[in-house]
């Protein structure tokens, strides 16, 4: 059978790409081989449009043990401890079937972390939905939230935070990004690189079904008969099996029997086996009749392309096979030797005693196409906010409106569906600037924050890229931790469009600049392209997941104001930048202007000074100023403790809205004892940092002198009503 043009297209390959395949094989491919190439050469596996740009990101420093290129990134947090983490998207499946899509997204990212030898200790997520008035939003939100909870709760990993945003740009293309963080002994980290010849290749976990097999291939001639039976199906998550797989793998990892291990993620058996062989510069031979199958009569094509969940591939020391099998038997999981490593550097698949595929590993992994796609420099929107008469807006009305908007409203409707404290190491749950999770049995903890700002990125991708890294850094500092490293998930439209590619390139340039300046390396990540419907792309949405460290549990702080009479100081200069602010969006529905600029020098200086103050025990609570500006951040601090604040009018600003809602970057609000004011001032002055006293903590009432006065309880009510109202329709 000769591969025809239609089959090539249906496999998402270009004609030139198929010609290259023929050249590499020295012959026509068969359908199975075509399927394997298409899986390996698609955007998702080969990063063909993004690789040359991702290379620009800084990925190393003295704490990075493993940067991008493995299942997850690994960093050193002192002693023998390592933190292993990654974020990944599951956008398209979640739009089709929100519960299962989100659930399997969580399952997949957990496997990426525990394949490397880590016990997962926390889950985070970033979810973006369309406008609340869109007819699908409620259903999608409900499904995604219960899917995330359903999986994480069952496996028993606390979901400690994340972000939820709404914007009509996601109406037909929601974003579901899940992040997992694990803890391992740094001397016991497992990699996917195969070593040694004739080593058994072991399949463990769930059986293989016809899940998620690329729909496009269904039309191909071979599948016409029984086509009903062979329809692709949505992947269903089985968190129970995941939990068993997790425990079995960690138990096996205690022994020295694993040579290499790799989860079966996208493109399942294909990508996992090829990745292991490719990294080890070896060949691999599989007997597909041995693959544990869930359905009858599964073809090699289906087995190789199935995306069934909760499966792993392990290359074992052959002397340890019996012992290993015993562990998997104990956990009632399949454990089958399905092949061996070879010295041929080829992927050889046998089925019914025939060779059904034979491809050089190099061709699949290293020869995958790399493109430098055309890209257009994004046009930056200029600030043009003069036409709005800010004076007409009463500041207290704006405050309430923003606090009760979907993006700013309290998310406990969501987080109450997540078990946030199982494992009993969660020190700070969601709701703060960053989650804090203790390293089990130790006097140290990590902080985790997930951030994005699609509005900033859409109006100025480079500045937005920079900003989002800084915001993440700021969040980690605000709880008192030292920022260490990040993972990132880059959600964009089609890379084949020069405008989208331009957004991508510039976002990366911005991220790179910030990461380099802050010594905040990228250790893992994921790229999700083609987030578009009817050829309309989503806003460029890079999501950053950052990790910080406390080397001592006494330095952890939160945003709850502590004592009546304490002062609140704003650190960092307010210039009154309202372009792309929450204020403009919520009050005027305006998406205009450029985002606030980032001054990296100030950013770093301010952040380090805050850490310095925390280390000297001079700060009783801290909160960064981000979306919504000073007033919203003050309100959040007040609601966190249910204490009130007496806010001062600014000295220089003529317009209160401009001062209180501006989103200038690099700012923090800190609470200090009156007695420490002198000390704090001298430290800030010495570092050349702009600061001013903005408020004093008082009981119950949140007020701006001579302007407005509201009960904190009232703020709280307004902040908590949106989700309940939205979901009451159900």
């Amino acid at each position, binding site marked *: 059978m000769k591969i025809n043009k239609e089959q090539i297209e249906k496999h998402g390959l270009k004609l030139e790409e198929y010609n290259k395949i023929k050249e590499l094989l020295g012959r026509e491919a068969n359908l199975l081989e075509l399927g394997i190439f298409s899986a390996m050469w698609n955007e998702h596996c080969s990063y063909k449009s993004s690789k040359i740009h991702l290379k620009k990101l800084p990925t190393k420093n003295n704490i990075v043990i493993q940067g991008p290129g493995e299942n997850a990134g690994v960093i050193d947090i002192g002693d023998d401890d390592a933190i292993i983490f990654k974020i990944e998207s599951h956008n398209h499946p979640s739009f*089709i*079937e929100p519960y*299962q899509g989100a659930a399997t997204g969580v399952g997949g990212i957990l496997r990426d972390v525990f394949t490397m030898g880590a016990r997962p200790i926390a889950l985070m997520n970033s979810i973006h939905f369309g406008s609340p008035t869109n007819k699908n939003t409620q259903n999608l939100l409900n499904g995604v939230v219960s899917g995330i909870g359903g999986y994480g709760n069952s496996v028993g990993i606390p979901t400690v935070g994340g972000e939820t945003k709404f914007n009509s740009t996601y109406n037909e293309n929601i974003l579901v990004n899940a992040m997992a963080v694990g803890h391992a002994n740094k001397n016991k980290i497992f990699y996917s690189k195969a070593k040694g010849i004739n080593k058994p290749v072991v399949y463990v976990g*769930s059986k293989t*079904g*016809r*899940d998620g097999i690329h729909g496009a291939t269904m039309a191909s001639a071979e599948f016409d008969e029984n086509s009903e*039976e062979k*329809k692709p*199906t*949505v*992947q*269903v*998550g*089985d968190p*129970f*099996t995941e939990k068993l797989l997790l425990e079995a793998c960690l138990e096996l990892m205690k022994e020295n029997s694993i040579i290499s291990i790799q989860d079966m993620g996208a493109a399942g058996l294909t990508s996992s086996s090829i990745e292991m062989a490719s990294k080890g510069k070896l060949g691999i031979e599989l007997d597909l009749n041995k693959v544990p199958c*869930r*359905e009858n009569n599964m073809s090699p094509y289906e087995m190789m392309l199935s995306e*069934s*969940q909760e499966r792993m591939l392990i290359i074992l020391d052959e002397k340890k096979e019996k012992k290993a099998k015993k562990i998997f038997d104990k956990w*009632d999981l399949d454990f089958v030797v399905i092949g061996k490593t070879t010295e041929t550097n080829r992927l050889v698949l046998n089925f019914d005693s025939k060779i059904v595929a034979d491809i050089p590993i190099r061709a699949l992994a290293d020869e995958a196409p790399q493109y430098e796609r055309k890209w257009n420099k994004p046009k930056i929107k200029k600030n043009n906010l003069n036409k709005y008469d800010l004076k007409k807006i009463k500041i207290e009305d704006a405050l309430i409106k923003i606090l009760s908007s979907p993006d700013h409203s309290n998310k406990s409707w969501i987080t109450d569906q997540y078990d946030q404290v199982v494992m009993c190491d969660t020190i700070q749950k969601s709701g703060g600037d960053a989650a804090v999770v203790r390293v089990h049995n130790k006097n140290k903890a990590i902080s985790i924050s997930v951030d994005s700002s699609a509005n900033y990125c859409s109006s100025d991708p480079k500045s937005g890229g920079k900003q989002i890294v800084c915001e993440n850094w700021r969040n980690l500092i605000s709880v008192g931790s030292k920022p260490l490293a990040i993972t990132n998930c880059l959600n964009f439209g089609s890379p084949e469009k020069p405008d989208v590619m331009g957004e991508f390139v510039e976002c990366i340039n911005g991220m790179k600049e910030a990461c380099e300046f802050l010594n905040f390396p990228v250790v893992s990540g994921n790229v999700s392209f083609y987030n578009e419907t009817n050829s309309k792309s989503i806003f460029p949405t890079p999501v950053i997941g950052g990790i910080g460290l406390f080397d001592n549990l006494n330095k952890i702080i939160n945003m709850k104001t502590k004592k009546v009479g304490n002062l609140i100081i704003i650190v960092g200069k307010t210039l009154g930048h309202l372009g792309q602010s929450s204020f403009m969006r919520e009050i005027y529905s305006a998406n205009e202007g450029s985002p606030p600029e980032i001054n990296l020098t100030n950013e770093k200086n301010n952040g380090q000074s805050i850490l310095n103050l925390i280390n000297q025990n001079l700060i009783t609570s801290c909160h960064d100023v981000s979306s919504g500006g000073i007033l919203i951040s003050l309100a959040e601090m007040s609601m966190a403790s249910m204490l009130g604040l007496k806010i001062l009018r600014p000295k220089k600003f003529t317009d209160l809205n401009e001062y209180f809602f501006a989103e200038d970057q690099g700012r923090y609000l800190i609470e200090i004892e009156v007695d420490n004011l002198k000390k704090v001032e001298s430290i800030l002055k010495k570092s050349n940092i702009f600061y001013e006293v903005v408020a004093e903590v008082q009981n119950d009432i949140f007020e701006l002198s001579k302007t407005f006065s509201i009960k904190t309880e009232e703020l709280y009510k307004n902040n908590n009503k949106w989700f309940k109202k939205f979901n009451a329709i159900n």
Partner: protein
Amino acid sequence: MKFAVTVTLKKDVLDPQGKVVSQTLKNMGMNNLSQVRQGKFFEIDLKEKDSSKAHNQVKEMCEKLLVNQIIEDFKISKTE
């Protein structure tokens, strides 16, 4: 008028519950069991005399709320 609706997972869709249930039954000694699949069941009681109208309405309920047609199939039968 009463209807019974059974909702089952499509054939190739993984049924984690059915899998565990069937394994448990086997462990309990039911060796001749070949498979169990688990689904949902609804009893729906309608104040409606026209049976074809009622049937259509139940179908609508299934399509709009009770069934996720991406992974599930359903069957409606009149019971009273």
